[in-house]
């Protein structure tokens, strides 16, 4: 028996089982399907949460300003507190203003940037 005979014999005696029952068995053992729109839903919840945080920040700032003496000094103090708070929240929770809106706001400015 030479190498070619061995190779041919191996090909001829190959085991190649195939049946639909096995396919069904594998499909039944797979983990449950993830929700088709899971990623989009998660994204919506994230954006809504960030919008909520941004709203709370704005509402607190307006309330503090209107309760105080008002004027330029108060606005300056408000900015000194609100800007780091905004930055900290953005850092911790992701951008509070969605990227496209932020870019539009930024570009609509006087162009000093």
């Amino acid at each position, binding site marked *: 028996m030479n190498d070619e005979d061995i190779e041919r014999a191996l090909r001829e005696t190959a085991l*190649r089982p195939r049946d639909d029952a*096995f396919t069904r068995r594998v499909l039944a053992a797979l983990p449950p399907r993830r929700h088709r729109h899971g990623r989009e839903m998660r994204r919506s919840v994230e954006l809504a949460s960030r919008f909520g945080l941004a709203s709370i920040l704005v509402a607190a700032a307006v309330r503090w300003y209107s309760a105080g003496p008002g004027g330029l000094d108060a606005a300056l103090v408000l900015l000194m507190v609100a800007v780091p708070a905004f930055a900290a929240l953005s850092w911790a929770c992701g951008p509070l203003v969605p990227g496209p809106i932020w870019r539009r706001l930024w570009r609509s400015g006087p162009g000093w940037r």
Partner: protein
Amino acid sequence: METDARLIARVLHDDDRAAFGELVRRHQPLVRGFLRRMLGGAAELADDLAQETFIKAHRALRGYRGGAQFSSWLCAIATNELRAEWRRRQRRAEFLDEEPGTGRTEAEDPAATRDLAGALAALPETQRAALVLCYEQGLTHEEAAVALGCPLGTLKSHISRGKARLREWLGEKEEA
């Protein structure tokens, strides 16, 4: 017929079970045949390992880069499953103080090597795996090397040694 790449894209994008079912249907002869031969014909255990192979493939599909053929990638997972099974047997045998079974009949037993299947089962695992993947299952040497996680030269050496042993055993049979 849709390509493997297209089916994989459907599984990844939509978690399409029908597409994964088609991948299983297409590749089960290779995976089940390979495992069955490696386990000395133990069909039930081989199918359990084949099922585990496909489940792990489904879990790891996002990590499949398409560099190797999908069939080689599946065989690599099947080989890992096989090694894990042999390690389990080894531990069990050590615990029970028995001889571990690896789906291999004793090479010292001449009766075991009288036919091709018996002789194949008596080969060391690496040689048997190389011969089964390359000749029974039709993988190229490069694909089989990926599947077994060894360099191409090592695979060729396993094939060459395996064939030499089969020639020797089956030649003895012919002479007898």
